[in-house]
C-alpha cells in the first residue's frame, strides 16, 4: 500500500531547554488508513505531529511525504493537510461562519462548509460569535476547520475531547467516512475507545521512542492471556474457573461445565488497550 508518510530516524531537541523530545523514531503511515499515535503527556507525540505538519523544522532524520522529502515542499503542502488541534483555534469575536470563511479563502480547494456545519450541528449557530460557544461547540468548529480545504490527510489531536456522546459519534462517523473516501488520518488521543473504534494501526510512544506499532487486534492478542474465564452457578453459588484456550474442546472439566452447569459469564483473556497503554508506556492514562 502507498505510504503517505515515511519517517526514518526522526530526532528533535528543543533548543530552549535542551530536551530531546523525539529520540530516533521510525514509522510509516499508509494511504487510506487511520494511524493512532498514542502516549502519555510529554511522550513526544505532539512534537512528532508538529514536525509532520511542518510547524517544527529543525529535526534530524528523514521524512518523506508521498515519496518526496518533506523539506522540499513549500507552503502548498498545506493544501493537502487538515489539522484538528486539541484546543480551540478561532477568533473569539468573529462568528463561526466568519472564522470559517476567513480560513477557507486561504486555500485553493474548498469543502462545502455549510454542509459540514450542518453535519456537526453548528449551522444554526454559525452567526453567533465563537466566544459565546460552549467548549464542545468550539471543538466541533475545530473539526470543521480541519476539513474546510477538503484535505487528503487529517491530523487530529484529541478530536472528541469535550464532546458529548452524540456529537462524539457524529465526529467519529465523519472520520470513518473521510477514510472510506481515500483520506489518511493521523490521530492522537488518550481515549482508547476512540482508538479501538477508529484506528487501523497504532504506535505507542513513550520517552520520545516508539515502543510498539501494530493493529489494535494484534496488540490485544500479544499482550492478552490465552485463557477463558467462566462464571457458572452451582450449589446456590456463583463459581469462577479459568481454562487454557489451547485445546479447550478437549478439556473435560470445561466441557462438563458447559454441558451441565448454568453459565453466567464467559470472558477471554484478551486485554484492553488501556492495559496495553499502561504496560507499554509504563504510565497511567492522563485524561
Amino acid at each position, binding site marked *: 500500500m502507498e505510504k503517505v508518510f515515511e519517517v526514518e530516524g526522526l530526532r528533535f531537541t528543543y533548543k530552549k531547554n535542551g530536551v530531546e523530545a523525539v529520540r530516533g523514531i521510525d514509522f510509516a503511515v499508509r494511504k487510506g488508513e487511520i494511524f493512532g499515535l498514542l502516549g502519555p503527556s510529554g511522550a513526544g507525540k505532539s512534537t512528532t505531529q508538529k514536525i509532520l505538519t511542518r510547524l517544527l523544522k529543525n529535526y534530524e532524520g528523514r521524512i518523506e511525504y508521498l515519496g518526496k522529502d518533506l523539506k522540499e515542499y513549500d*507552503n*502548498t503542502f498545506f493544501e493537502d493537510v487538515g489539522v484538528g488541534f486539541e484546543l480551540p*483555534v478561532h*477568533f473569539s469575536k468573529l462568528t463561526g461562519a466568519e472564522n470559517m470563511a476567513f*480560513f477557507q479563502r*486561504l486555500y485553493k480547494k474548498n469543502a462545502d462548509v455549510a454542509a459540514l456545519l450542518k453535519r456537526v450541528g453548528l449551522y444554526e449557530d454559525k452567526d453567533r460569535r465563537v466566544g459565546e460557544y460552549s467548549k464542545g461547540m468550539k471543538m466541533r468548529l475545530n473539526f470543521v476547520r480541519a476539513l474546510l480545504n477538503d484535505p487528503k490527510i487529517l491530523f487530529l489531536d484529541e478530536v472528541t475531547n469535550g464532546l458529548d456522546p452524540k456529537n462524539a459519534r457524529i465526529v467519529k462517523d465523519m472520520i470513518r467516512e473521510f477514510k472510506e473516501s481515500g483520506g489518511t488520518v493521523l490521530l492522537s488521543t488518550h481515549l482508547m475507545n476512540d482508538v479501538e473504534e477508529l484506528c487501523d494501526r497504532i504506535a505507542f510512544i513513550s520517552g520520545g521512542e516508539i515502543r510498539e506499532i501494530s493493529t489494535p487486534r494484534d496488540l490485544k492478542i500479544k499482550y492478552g492471556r490465552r485463557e477463558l474465564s467462566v462464571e457458572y452457578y452451582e450449589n446456590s453459588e456463583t463459581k469462577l474457573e479459568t481454562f487454557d484456550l489451547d485445546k479447550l474442546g478437549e478439556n473435560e472439566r470445561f466441557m462438563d461445565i458447559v454441558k451441565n452447569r448454568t453459565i453466567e459469564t464467559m470472558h477471554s483473556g484478551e486485554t484492553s488497550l488501556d492495559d496495553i497503554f499502561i504496560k507499554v508506556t509504563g504510565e497511567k492514562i492522563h485524561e
Partner: protein
Amino acid sequence: MSNFMVLLKGEFQRLIKYNIVQVGFGVSVLWVLVLFLIGRDQAADFVPLFIFMDASLMTILLIGAGLFYERQENTLKSLMITPSKLGYIIASKLVSAVYIALQSALFIGLLAYFFFDAAVNFAYLLPFTLLIALSHAMIGYAIAVLVEDFPALLATLMLYMIVFAFPSIFYALDLFDGIWEVVLIASPTHASFLLIDFSFGYDISTTLLVVSVAYLFLLAFSLARFVVFPKYIEKAVRE
C-alpha cells in the same frame, strides 16, 4: 484574491470586530480634546508629540498585545498550517498597525492644520508616520516574540519608554541641553521625533533627517531579519 489580500482583509475585519479602529480613533479624539484644553497658543507645539505617541508607543502596544491575544486564541498556530507564507502573515499585521497610526496622524494633523494653524506638511507627515509606525511595529513584534507573557511585554514597554521615549520627550520640552542630541540620535524614538518635527516645519538638518530615515529603515529590517522571523514560528507553535 491572493493570500496576502485575504490576510489583510482578515486583519482589517478583526481591527473593527475587536474595536481597535474605534479605540484608536477614540485616542485621537482624546488627544484633540487635550489640545483644545491646552489652548490655541501652545497646542501646535504638542501636536507632534501626540502623533509621535500614536505612531510609536501605541503601535508597539497594538502589535504586542495583538500577538499575545492571538496566541491565547491559538489562531497563530491555525494560520501557520495554511498555505500562506510567513512573510505575508507578518506583513498583513504590520499594514494594519501602520494603518491605525496613519489614521491617527491624518486626523490629528488635519485638526491641527485647520484649528491650531499648525504648519503641517502632509507630504512629509504621512510617509514619515508610516516609517515610524513600521519600525515601532517591528520593535513591538521583537518584544512580543522575546518575552514570555503579557505582563512581561508591558514591563518591557515601560523600560523602553524610560530608556528611549522619556529622554526624547524631555529633550523636546527643552528639559535637556542640546548636547544630549548626540546621544539621543541612537534612539529610535528620537529619530522618529526628528521626522515628525520636520513635518511640522521645525528646522532639522538634512544630515539628521537622512540619518533618522536610514536608522529606522535599518532597525526595522534588522529586527525583522534577525529576531521576528526566526522567533515567530517558535512563538506560534508553543502551547
